[in-house]
């Protein structure tokens, strides 16, 4: 326990290594920010995947669609996140500050990234495999779901990893425009640092963000391995 004097002078409690004490002292608040951060990072990627799957399929099926779709995706991905956050409301007819603006913006990013990944993943399916499936009596949809998508899983998973890890950092940026998530820890730390540096919330925020990104990354790697048992048999990686 730090004495009030120590807390006032900020000597002991402002050490960067006291982030855990800070965490336990503000447990309820921190966990709620962490939870907001989790769903704000994960849901847009899932929504993005749902939208990107048909688009990527189209881009792969009709080759003339690939360049324009990919150019639009590239343009969207070029827009800096903070700009996209504030541009979403007027474009989607929302209020200037709407709780949906950040999830929508992040979904746009995820779609932009994943369209290319899905198209390239489907393109990576060897032709003879697709033909073998057809000759075994698979219809187009069945072939897509049972043969082509499973083969594309590693490529799509790689894209999902990029998208989720990026999202964790982007959500923290959304914190600077007032959204409740781990980014608030940085705002808190910055505000508490006016006379002298107060590290615990800042360090805690960085650690939780990195831990979250790693957790997502490992989950996707693990999920991708579960979905592709045949890859372990080949042992090429």
């Amino acid at each position, binding site marked *: 326990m730090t004495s009030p004097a120590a807390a006032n002078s900020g000597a002991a409690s402002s050490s960067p290594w006291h982030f855990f004490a800070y965490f336990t002292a503000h447990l309820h608040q921190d966990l709620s920010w962490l939870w907001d951060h989790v769903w704000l990072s994960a849901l847009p990627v899932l929504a993005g995947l749902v939208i990107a799957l048909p688009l990527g399929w189209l881009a792969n099926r009709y080759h003339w669609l690939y360049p324009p779709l*990919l150019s639009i995706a590239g343009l969207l991905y070029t827009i800096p996140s903070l700009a996209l956050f504030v541009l979403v409301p007027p474009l989607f007819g929302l209020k200037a500050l709407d709780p949906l603006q950040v999830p929508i913006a992040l979904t746009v*990013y995820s779609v*932009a990234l994943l369209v290319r990944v899905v198209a390239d993943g489907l393109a990576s399916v060897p032709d003879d495999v697709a033909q073998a499936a057809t000759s075994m009596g698979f219809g187009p949809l069945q072939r897509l779901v049972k043969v082509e998508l499973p083969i594309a899983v590693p490529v799509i998973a790689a894209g999902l990893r990029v998208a989720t890890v990026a999202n964790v950092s982007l959500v923290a940026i959304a914190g600077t425009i*007032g959204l409740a998530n781990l980014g608030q820890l*940085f705002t808190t730390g910055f505000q508490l640092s006016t006379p002298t540096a107060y590290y615990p919330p*800042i360090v805690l925020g960085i650690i939780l963000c*990195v831990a979250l990104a790693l957790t997502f990354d490992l989950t996707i790697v693990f999920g991708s391995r579960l979905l592709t048992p045949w890859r372990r048999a080949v042992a090429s*990686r």
Partner: protein
Amino acid sequence: MIANVFHWLTTDAHWRSTHNYTGILSQLAAHIRFSVIAVAIALVIALPLGLFIGHTGRATSLVTAANTFRALPSVGVLVLLTVIIAPHVHGRTDLGYLVPTEIVLVLLAIPPILSNTYAGVQNVDRTTRDAAAAMGMTGQQVLRQVEFPLSLPLIFSGLRSAALQVIATATIASYLPLGGLGRFIYDGLAQQDFPQMIGGGVLVAALALITDGVLALVQRNVVSRGITGRFTTNVATAAGPVAAALVPLGAPVDVEVAAS
């Protein structure tokens, strides 16, 4: 709302600076200044390093190490460095905010340039490299006259994604009391002046798109046509930074944060 934003953007007084107001032109200049400094420093560090690693195949772990930086939340690192550095800077300068910002921007710009340069040199056809050596070229000559020009498309995609990353993060630097186009976004937010906030967003997006377009033009003029014809990534480079983020990832994808 869109009409208000348009009005904010087209109001002449918002573009020029007065003694107590920094206009769009000055903030734009500041934004470009931060970004150019950071990309230049990153280029000086990452380009030779990437060429060396790609050419020799040594120290490849450095590329992986640089890529792990991307998992760090940029705002968090920005605030942390500011809190560490700012109290040591006295006087009427914004160096206390500028230095941490530049450090973060450089840290963000290094990974894409480094890993793309490395991947570019690495992707040069074995037989091409051998042919160059067989013609009597020294290692230096192979690197300068064969590997470097052949890896230019990938180096450029790295440079482009680094530039975009830097422009995006320089916007967040306005969250600290620092200039740049992000100023309008954060000031608009604080004053509940939404046309200003959204107008700032339009300006930042425009700066990013124009920068990418200019770099794409430079790339088109610098990269030999013999190469662009050969690379199937032609379509991909037209697609911009997404391609930049994913082109070198034939093998396992590294943790890569493309936008921020």
